[in-house]
């Protein structure tokens, strides 16, 4: 972050645009190159540069500042405004940093399944997905959110459909149908809001919507929006598309999708609830809490229980993702500072841990070619470093002290106790026990079962995949001890979101 001071002042002003353009422009360049290695270098450089921009932006807004940038120099009501506050900055960092880490590992991971020319198209899609996720995060325009959401979804469908198993195709198709219905619902919601207010700028919407609080059109808009975005971030019971999509997405891609796509959609929900519809309208008048709380709890329990009985490593982690998303929506529904802090911190922490876990599994698959738990048995002896990283990340996911997972769970349980919801707090502990069951099951297989004969000789994963894996693992420990960037920042964001209403 110190580097930033030496950069010319003008550049800093243009950072929001630069950060988006880096990935957005690198994408077509990669597609034209038709050279896998070179495109990978460009894609990796672009995503790391983007991550550096995210750091610089976070540095700028640190402490409660906000940046407003006029795209193309058009002032807000006419042009599209980019608005960045602390919440935006942390999500930006999540997308770009974890995206860059996965991108670093991606080349090695792809070599076995794709020809070089095809690879460059794959990096193009990956970059487009990342650029549009950045776009969703920074934009201050409601319609722009829809457009970027669709670009990111289209890129995601393509990424999933490239999986080697033919079931990847059906998974991508299902996701396409569900995702498009969700996005179109959001479009309808935006249409209703435009009908009422005549504006698409989020700040203007927030100003003009309160006078329509009793209007049925706004109620319909809110209903469409909630369902649409719930499909997008796979809230239970609209998670139908997620397990298959994550299981069959090729290699390291799952790590990126699991880390970013659902989190950014959840961010859109938080942004719209607090900054567009208004928290009083959403939770007071529309009773969003009565919908979110039972569904989150049901999601946590059902998905954790399903995860325990899975026999495929990727599918198990995918189900655990559905459960973990339940923690985030529960934290949001608690509607107190601790709960909201947990939701925001867990978005970051879970993205980090789940990306690392999927990446570790991808490294194992790189050697074994299959993700069934049976074939991963005994891999702790043949691939000790990968499995050790997996173990650290898994322990983080359970929520053991001194890992990032503990921090968010601590806040969540405190939030539940603040509300005197003792049963909810107990259920959260029960669900942690389930996490011990499914992570423990995987670790048991990896460390204590004998390796099947054909995999007895597999080698340790390649360095280019191991290093990102360990980066995730070490970050998990780091953010379990130093919580200024996660919980500390999340707490400030939470109190400003709740205080502002």
């Amino acid at each position: 972050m110190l580097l930033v001071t030496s950069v010319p002042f003008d550049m800093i002003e243009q950072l929001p645009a630069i950060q988006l353009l880096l990935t957005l422009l690198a994408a077509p360049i990669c597609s034209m190159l038709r050279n896998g290695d070179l495109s990978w270098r460009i894609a990796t450089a672009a995503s790391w540069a983007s991550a550096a921009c995210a750091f610089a932006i976070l540095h700028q807004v640190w402490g409660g500042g906000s940046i407003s940038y006029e795209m193309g120099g058009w002032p807000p009501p006419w042009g599209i405004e980019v608005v960045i506050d602390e919440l935006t900055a942390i999500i930006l960092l999540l997308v770009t940093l974890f995206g860059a880490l996965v991108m670093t590992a991606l080349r090695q991971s792809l070599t076995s399944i794709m020809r070089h020319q095809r690879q460059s198209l794959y990096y193009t899609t990956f970059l487009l997905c990342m650029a549009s996720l950045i776009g969703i995060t920074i934009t201050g325009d409601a319609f722009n959110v829809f457009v970027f959401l669709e670009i990111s979804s289209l890129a995601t469908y393509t990424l999933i459909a490239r999986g080697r198993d033919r079931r990847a195709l059906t998974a991508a198709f299902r996701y396409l149908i569900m995702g498009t219905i969700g996005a179109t619902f959001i479009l309808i919601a935006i249409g209703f809001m435009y009908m009422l207010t005549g504006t698409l700028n989020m700040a203007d919407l927030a100003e003009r919507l309160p006078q329509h609080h009793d209007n049925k059109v706004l109620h319909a808009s809110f209903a469409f929006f909630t369902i649409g975005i719930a499909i997008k971030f796979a809230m239970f019971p609209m998670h139908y598309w997620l397990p298959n999509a994550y299981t069959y997405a090729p290699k390291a891609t799952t790590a990126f999708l699991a880390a970013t796509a659902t989190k950014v959609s959840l961010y859109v929900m938080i942004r719209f609830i607090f900054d567009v519809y208004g928290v009083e309208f959403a939770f007071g008048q529309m009773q969003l809490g009565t919908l979110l709380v039972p569904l989150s709890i049901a999601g946590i329990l059902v998905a954790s229980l399903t995860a325990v009985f899975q026999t495929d490593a990727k599918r198990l982690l995918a189900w655990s993702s559905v459960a973990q998303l339940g923690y985030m929506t529960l934290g949001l529904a608690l509607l107190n500072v601790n709960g909201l802090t947990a939701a925001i911190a867990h978005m970051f922490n879970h993205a980090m841990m789940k990306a690392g876990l999927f990446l570790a599994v991808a490294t194992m698959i790189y050697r074994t070619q299959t993700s069934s738990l049976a074939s991963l048995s005994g891999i702790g002896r043949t691939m000790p470093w990968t499995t050790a990283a997996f173990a650290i990340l898994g322990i983080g996911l359970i929520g053991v002290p001194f890992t990032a997972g503990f921090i968010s769970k601590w806040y969540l349980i405190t939030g539940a106790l603040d509300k005197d919801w003792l049963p909810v707090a107990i259920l959260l502990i029960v669900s942690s026990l389930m996490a011990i069951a499914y992570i423990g099951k995987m670790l048991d297989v990896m460390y204590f079962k004998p390796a099947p004969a054909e995999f007895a000789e597999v080698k340790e994963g390649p360095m280019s995949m191991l290093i990102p894996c360990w980066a995730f693992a070490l970050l998990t420990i780091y953010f379990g001890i130093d919580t200024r960037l996660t919980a500390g920042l999340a707490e400030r964001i939470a109190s400003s979101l709740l205080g502002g209403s």
Partner: protein
Amino acid sequence: MLTGLFNYWIVIILMMAGLYIVMSSGHLVKKIIGLNIFQTSVFIFFISMGNVAGGTAPILKDGFNVFSNPLPHVLILTAIVVGVATTALGLAISVRVYEAYGTVEEDEITAKDRDNRHRETSVSTVTQGAATEDVQEIQS
């Protein structure tokens, strides 16, 4: 009341018809058609919303005082592009599904997947199957 909201009734009918097709049909291409009808209903919704009774296109000239709001229309241009892209991708995936399964009926696809799972009980067959696919992929 009924005639004044004619467009919106059409929107609702199309929307329900589209959603019904998506849910009831197992044919992948029919699902995409349903999705298209559903999206089209939203396009009509936006266009109707921007229309001003008796208004013309936004022309800045004497004699054209009342004109429709062009912004929703422009938005829908973007949404149409998104819709076309989605349709294209959906159809492309359907083609790949047909190549991989020999059918685009959801029931038959599920049945074939289930058969596969029964056959490929041991780990090694899965690996081999996937490996040959890769070789073909790299050779082609």
